[in-house]
């Protein structure tokens, strides 16, 4: 059996056409996704706001400059990216050229002033300009409010300043809010497309098992007829074929996973081991699809390939692969017809990886894995029914 397994493995590995869909396709499409989604992801990741400062004499003497300095310190909390200009005209020119999102200055009495660009996108991404303007306005407004509050306190109850730490705590927002993450990773809408891509790639990988199964069918290949005459039982032949097909399918998905994870930079919730387990399950499911299709009686190899390609494209539509409207359609179907969505292997694979990314625990991932295993078992059973005691009236 070992030699037959190795022979089947060699046969599959050397049949290059199988790797077009199973390996090259996910690599190419994920690269295209990487460039397509680059700007979208930029729009959801915060970057410090490029801000011009009119660094005149009044600025140097004002308390606001100390606040701005604090907000532009390097680190994870850096809010502003400061560029200093000697005059207001130079700062405005930078604003008009789009180099900065706004201009901060202080008047003769040290009160902050904000000058922002007109209400159009500064970065070419809708909404980003509004966000940057809001940040600058909030910084200036908060400073003014706090300055006014301190001035009022100093006038009405100067003794509170005896304990500066209490004043500092009172003005800190940390006392009132607590940062809590509801998800394991910061949600990125675009990752779902990569997960849907893995659903499609796994289904295309079913070609591997389908091809291997056809090489065992007397009515589909001369080699199949020759093997049927041999002394290796049909059950063992099927076992060896599935094992070799699974290994090749899994290797393709694992390579695609490594590429998407390391080169494209898609996060799987920092659970790479579990993600690989998911890939193994997806590869096994692909084998079961390939076996069921390969064992389908009275359909030739071309017909089976057509069924697989058409089916994969259709199921990928309901996994949301083809863009935002399709993703919404897939979500709608999943909400209104959950059973139908569960029966879609492409959607099941997509959801399985998203559960790794989104949820704190692994319970949902386990559920999705079990669902995939159940689908796999049913498809293998279908293949067995077709293949068991299969004899031919003509070949």
């Amino acid at each position, binding site marked *: 059996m070992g030699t037959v397994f190795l*022979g089947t493995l060699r046969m599959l590995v050397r049949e290059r056409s199988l790797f077009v869909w199973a390996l090259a396709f996910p690599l190419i499409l994920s690269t295209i996704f990487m460039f397509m989604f680059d700007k979208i992801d930029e729009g959801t990741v915060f970057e410090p706001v490029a801000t011009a400062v009119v660094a005149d004499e009044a600025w140097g003497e004002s308390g606001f400059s100390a606040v701005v300095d604090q907000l532009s310190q390097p680190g994870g909390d850096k809010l502003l990216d400061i560029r200093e200009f000697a005059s207001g005209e130079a700062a405005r020119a930078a604003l008009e050229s789009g180099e900065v999102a706004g201009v901060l200055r202080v008047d003769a009495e040290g009160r902050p002033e904000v000058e922002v660009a007109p209400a159009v996108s500064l970065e070419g991404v809708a909404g980003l300009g509004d966000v940057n303007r809001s940040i600058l306005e909030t910084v200036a407004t908060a400073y003014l409010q706090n300055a006014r509050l301190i001035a009022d306190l100093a006038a009405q109850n100067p003794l509170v300043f005896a304990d500066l730490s209490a004043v500092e705590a009172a003005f800190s927002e940390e006392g009132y809010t607590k940062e809590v993450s509801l998800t394991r990773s910061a949600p990125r809408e675009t990752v779902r497309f990569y997960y849907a891509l893995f659903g499609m790639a796994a289904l295309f990988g079913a070609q591997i098992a389908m091809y291997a199964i056809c090489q065992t069918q*007397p009515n589909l290949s001369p080699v199949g007829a020759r093997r049927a*005459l041999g002394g290796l039982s049909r059950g063992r032949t099927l076992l060896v074929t599935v094992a070799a097909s699974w290994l090749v399918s899994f290797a393709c998905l694992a390579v695609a996973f490594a590429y998407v994870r390391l080169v494209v930079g898609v996060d799987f919730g920092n659970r790479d081991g579990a993600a690989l387990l998911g890939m193994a399950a997806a590869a096994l499911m692909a084998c079961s699809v390939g076996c069921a299709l390969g064992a389908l009686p009275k359909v030739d190899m071309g017909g089976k390939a057509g069924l697989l390609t058409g089916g994969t494209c259709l199921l990928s539509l309901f996994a949301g692969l083809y863009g935002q409207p399709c993703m919404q359609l897939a979500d709608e179907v999943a909400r209104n017809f959950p059973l139908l969505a569960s029966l879609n292997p492409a959607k099941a694979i997509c959801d399985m990886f998203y559960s790794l990314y989104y949820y704190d625990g692994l319970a949902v991932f386990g559920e999705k894995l079990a669902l995939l295993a159940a689908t796999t078992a049913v498809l293998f059973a279908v293949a067995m029914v077709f293949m068991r005691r299969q004899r031919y009236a003509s070949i």
Partner: protein
Amino acid sequence: MSAIVEVNNLVKRYGDVMALDHFDLTIQPGEVFGLLGPNGSGKTTAINCILQLLTYDKGIIQLFGQPMTPTAYQLKRKIGVVPQNVALFEELTVQENIDFFCALYVADRKERRRLVEEAISFVGLEDYRKFRPRKLSGGLLRRLNIACGIAHCPSLAFFDEPTVAVDPQSRNAILEGIRLMNERGCTVVYTSHYMEEVEEICSRIMIMDRGRAVAVGTNAELKAMVGTGERIRAEVALLPDEVRRRIASLPHVRRIDYDGELLSVHCEQGAHNVGDVLGVLADASIAVGRLYSEPPTLNDVFLEITGKQLRD
């Protein structure tokens, strides 16, 4: 000794077409059994039914004295098959192909390594062991096809037209190989359209037509079954019409041809045909150059039994 292949009353239909019509076959151990028949006569269908590759409507098939079933793997391990169409993995090398198919029968790796080497040398593919099938010529492919079918040293081997589209050297090598296998104890079932091959290597021959066995026997027995006798050829410089008419009217003469130099007389079975023809020529004082008497060939027998009508 019990038969190694025993087929009784085998019936196989393709819709309304009767592919095997109450077909019977008995092959004894050690035979090289030839299965002859026109296209569509049921030779390959019979083999595929015997090997349980095809379903059949009726009949009993026994191999090695045991009922043959699709799951009779113990029996299958003793059988080798060289199919009519070359059946090889394009992705595997010569050696890997032979090893793969041998592994379907022989589990022991060491034993298999020896068998694969023997098979490679048996078909003379030593210089091509790392080649993929697409790099091989038609003759080499046929030889590889044979090696894959017999590497496990079967006790019973089916060769379904193994010499189609090969050159005379390869054909000779293949026939020599089959003879050698038989000498080593392998019973061979051989189908072919080439009568001279069957005549050369088969100890017993069956002629099939329309799914039935129409004649079975040794080469000599088959020739004795038909009316066709010897063909006499004589170099004759001049043959008057009168003499030609007298030869044509001899008791066992079926037909005569004369092209101005060579006289051909086609006879039925008879004891004195040559003497009778020579007697007429001597009476007419006609000088005879060289004289040949050729016994009937298997081709003559085949055409007489199956007819000369074209088949599909």
